[in-house]
């Protein structure tokens, strides 16, 4: 051990570390620790000059181990490993101590911070002595990709890859792709018709030779790792044979039963029991809503089958769910968002006061192919409102619901105001907002346009929407009670219609989805990116990427950008053909395994097999992801985790406790 020559480098990180930690003192102190050959401090270790220091010291002083005390390994472990490699050292002869996130950023106490920096550095010094040279493992990348979620983000990602000649499985759980964008009428800020820009992309995705479109389908199981995932997909029974169906729609026409369409029409309209969510749906094949189908429930009807003109008949009442298994190299999650449930804020009256609408109801209402043929009318479906109030931040920026800003609601609320002006020119429109947030290309201009269109802007959080009139002119109206903070007065604004602009929130099953794909989601349920600034579409799990509103509130342009970014990432990896995998793996010493089988069902990657003939378990190296679960579980201590051996961990613990004098053992009282 004493033959090791360690180089220790303490980073200032500008002032991030040096402001609180006495870096000179730490460096000097580290220089006196056993085996330490050189100890330096430097302004930015991650700069090329900082890296050169390491490289040169290895070459000139024959260093055999390197310790850098700086930021989180998430940031720069790779940087410094590569520097070691350039200097001629195995990259795993390196250990990083995090004296920024774990130290200088947590306190203003200089003495304590310096002491802790020493402890963390010492832990690394003592650990690194036990490091072993490890070789990275090359893994081949399967060139096929799975995209989950067929909203605009998922469609974009799928098309980018497919156009580049790569095969994509696009899985959508609704009967059609399109996502929320398909429900919208116009899109801010340019007001192009949502369907006009979306449907060509949907059609492309539906017809692309490189895209296997699996709608009415959900992912059930994901095994494997980057380059080699095996995914089981449940293709739910449509009760319509996709090979025979021509999409003529006669079955829909002839189906005698209507139900309220809570999904696509947001409850504003009906659909048939055999249905396509909307006329431009992709694929064109309808599905039978089994729950509401009279034939399925009562055994009689079969109108759809009777009128189906295809030969053979496309209706298949005995169709079963199918489980498909596909192999892919990468997975892009684009599962989108859901809208905040406005009934959770009872004082705004949604669900209680008929003429309070949600944003998505309004979108359907103004849509030319929607339930009112694009007419803005009250719940009676006849009367056009003469005055409309639009309430921003419903469920957003609110301690009781979501603290975050949903980012798009100001813009779509302005869009709503514009649409009311456009369709009912003499209507008064009030936008009640907390702050007007319109950052984005052409967005502020759009706001200005609305200011000129005569919208009344009231800056204040709405307290309540009520139908209890206090004055004659309030009779029969909805009264919006709001403090207008710009004039410093409470106002009661009587209107005919109120539109709520609800928050964008994570899908209700986002936690389960994150577990299924073994990646993280945050407290709000949005998927966690690898780095909030520098790596927004990757996740902590290699090979799993995220795009669109599943990562956080986003408008269409941002969702598209992320879809394309995720696709570019995947395309780059596919081009490489192989990735180098961390050699941090578990292995079982075959001679010492007693075959107790504790580890067998432990592995999240199914990398452990039991050989019944020899009664021993084995880790399949290519499948192991080095998570360490089996290492911890093995009661015999014979599964070892490379780079996390007992020696390494115990010496690290001892190192961190260097200044803790063990209490004198209480042997005799």
């Amino acid at each position, binding site marked *: 051990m004493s033959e090791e020559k360690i180089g220790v480098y303490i980073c200032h990180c500008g002032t991030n570390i040096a402001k609180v930690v006495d870096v000179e003192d730490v460096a000097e102190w580290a220089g006196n620790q056993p085996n330490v050959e050189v100890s330096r401090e430097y302004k930015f270790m991650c700069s090329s000059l900082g890296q050169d220091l390491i490289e040169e010291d290895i070459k000139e002083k024959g260093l055999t181990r390197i310790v850098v005390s700086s930021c989180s390994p998430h940031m720069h472990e790779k940087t410094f490993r590569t520097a070691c490699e350039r200097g001629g050292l195995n990259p795993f002869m390196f250990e990083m101590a995090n004296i920024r996130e774990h130290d200088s950023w947590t306190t203003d106490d200089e003495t304590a911070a310096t002491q802790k920096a020493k402890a963390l550095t010492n832990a690394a010094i003592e650990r690194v002595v036990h490091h072993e040279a490890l070789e990275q493992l090359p893994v081949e990348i399967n060139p096929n990709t799975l995209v989950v979620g067929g909203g605009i983000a998922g469609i974009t990602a799928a098309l980018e890859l497919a156009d580049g000649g790569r095969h994509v499985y696009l899985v959508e759980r609704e009967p059609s792709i399109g996502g929320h964008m398909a429900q919208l009428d116009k899109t801010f800020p340019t007001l192009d018709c949502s369907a006009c820009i979306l449907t060509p992309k949907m059609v492309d995705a539906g017809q692309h030779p490189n895209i296997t479109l699996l709608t009415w389908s959900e992912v059930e199981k994901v095994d494997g790792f980057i380059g080699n995932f095996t995914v089981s997909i449940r293709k739910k029974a449509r009760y319509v044979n996709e090979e025979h169906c021509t999409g003529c729609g006669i079955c829909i026409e002839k189906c005698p039963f209507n139900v309220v369409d809570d999904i696509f029409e947001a409850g504003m309209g009906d659909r048939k029991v055999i249905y396509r969510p909307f006329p431009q749906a992709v694929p064109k094949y309808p599905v039978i809503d089994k729950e509401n189908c009279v034939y399925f429930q009562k055994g009689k009807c079969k109108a759809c089958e009777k009128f189906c003109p295809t030969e053979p008949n496309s209706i298949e009442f005995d169709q079963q769910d199918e489980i498909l298994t596909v192999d892919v190299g990468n997975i892009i999650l684009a599962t989108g968002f859901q809208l905040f449930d406005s009934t959770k804020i009872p004082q705004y009256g949604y669900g209680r006061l008929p003429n309070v609408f949600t944003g998505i109801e309004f979108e359907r209402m103004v849509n030319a192919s929607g339930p009112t043929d694009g007419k803005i009318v009250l719940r009676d479906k006849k009367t056009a409102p003469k005055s409309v109030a639009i309430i921003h931040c419903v469920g957003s920026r609110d301690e009781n619901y979501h603290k975050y800003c949903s980012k798009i609601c100001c813009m779509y609320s302005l869009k709503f105001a514009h649409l009311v002006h456009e369709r009912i020119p003499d209507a008064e429109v009030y936008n009640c907002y907390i702050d007007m947030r319109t950052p984005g290309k052409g967005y502020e201009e759009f706001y200005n346009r609305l200011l000129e269109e005569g919208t009344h802007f009231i800056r204040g959080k709405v307290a309540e929407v009520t139908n209890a009139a206090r004055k004659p002119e309030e009779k029969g109206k909805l009264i919006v009670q709001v403090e207008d903070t710009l004039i410093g007065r409470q106002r009661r604004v009587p209107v005919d219609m109120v539109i709520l602009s609800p928050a964008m929130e994570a899908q209700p099953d986002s*936690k*389960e989805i994150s*577990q299924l794909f073994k990646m993280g989601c945050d407290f709000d349920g949005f998927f966690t990116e690898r780095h909030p600034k520098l790596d927004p579409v990757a996740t902590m799990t290699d090979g799993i990427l995220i795009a669109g509103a599943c990562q956080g509130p986003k408008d269409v342009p941002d969702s598209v950008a992320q879809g394309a970014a995720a696709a570019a990432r995947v395309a780059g990896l596919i081009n490489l053909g192989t990735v180098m995998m961390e050699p941090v793996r578990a292995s079982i010493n075959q*001679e*010492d*395994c*007693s*075959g*107790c*089988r*504790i*580890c*067998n*069902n*432990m592995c999240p990657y199914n990398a452990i097999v*039991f050989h019944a003939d020899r*009664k021993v378990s084995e880790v399949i190296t290519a499948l192991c992801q080095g998570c360490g*679960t089996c290492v*911890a*579980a*093995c*009661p*015999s*201590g*014979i599964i070892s985790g490379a780079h996390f051996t*007992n020696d390494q961990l*115990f010496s690290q613990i001892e190192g961190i406790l260097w200044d803790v004098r063990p209490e004198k*053992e*209480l*042997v*005799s*009282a």
Partner: protein
Amino acid sequence: MSEKPKLAMYWAASCGGCEISVLNIHEHILTVDSIFDIAFFPCIADFKVHHVENYPDGYIDVCLWNGAIRNSESEHMAHLLRQKSKVLVAYGSCAYEGCIPALSNLTSKAATFNTVYGENHSLDNPNQVVPLTSVDVAEGTLTLPEFYHTVQSLDQVVDVDYYLPGCPPEPPQIWAVLQVVVAGLLEGAPLPPKGSIVGVTNTAVCEECDRVKSEKAIERFYRPYEITPDPEVCLLDQGLVCMGLATRGGCGALCPQVNMGCRGCYGPMPGVEDQGAKMLSAIASVIGAGEPGMEDAELEEKIGAVVDTIVDPAGTFYRFSMAHSLLRRAKVNGNGKG
């Protein structure tokens, strides 16, 4: 004195089972007798401490020490016998890792005294008399060894050459080890490296157990009297705590063969610092509770309910290894309550 090598065996905090185990090597005991001269063996021969004190240093060739270090007397004897012995063997689980006596490390000296001399249904001690290290009486001063707060293993007090685990060690292993030692002493054959754990295998007890093991998902644990186990199936798979998987083999898996889960007396596997912790993490890994997607709080409750079926986890998982584990002892405050 003859030229035969000298053998000693001493007991500290122990039950006497280790002495019996030496006699339990059957007819081989005659060979032992013919090879060795007994130099000190309080259980079977009438030697006094002053005899030992008068031996020259290193006079005893092999000393089998059993028992944990419980009080000042055992500590003194450990130092004495270390000085007088060429080879000191920590014999049996108490000497090796503290064993049952060391379970009192979970509490304090005061609490132990209270159980033994104070509040105990089988006691009548109205004046609450407890042992003192010295008492003045008319005839002079009476002394007793000092009872320590913490029980230690032999190697926590003196340097140990070999360890022979077991509670007690199994006869075939004892005989095998004695043969190696004899070959070393008489024929100059190489002895195992100092610090070796002898009379054991390098695999866990499961290796020696023929029961069929499966993938595990344990929904509740049973105490031995609660079920009649299937004789073919792994006891742990049936919910009986069996330490075999965290315990070094060599015993021949005797306990599981008779439907009794391994207690763990052969100690941890090579390279394992803490047998109890290892077993705990193994058990925690195979608890079959809850369903995927369940809320954390509910899952925790479900897991808690399964774990609660293990009675006395510390006494179960650290039954033999407390003194030598990473835990070593519980923190106790002044009044001796945990």
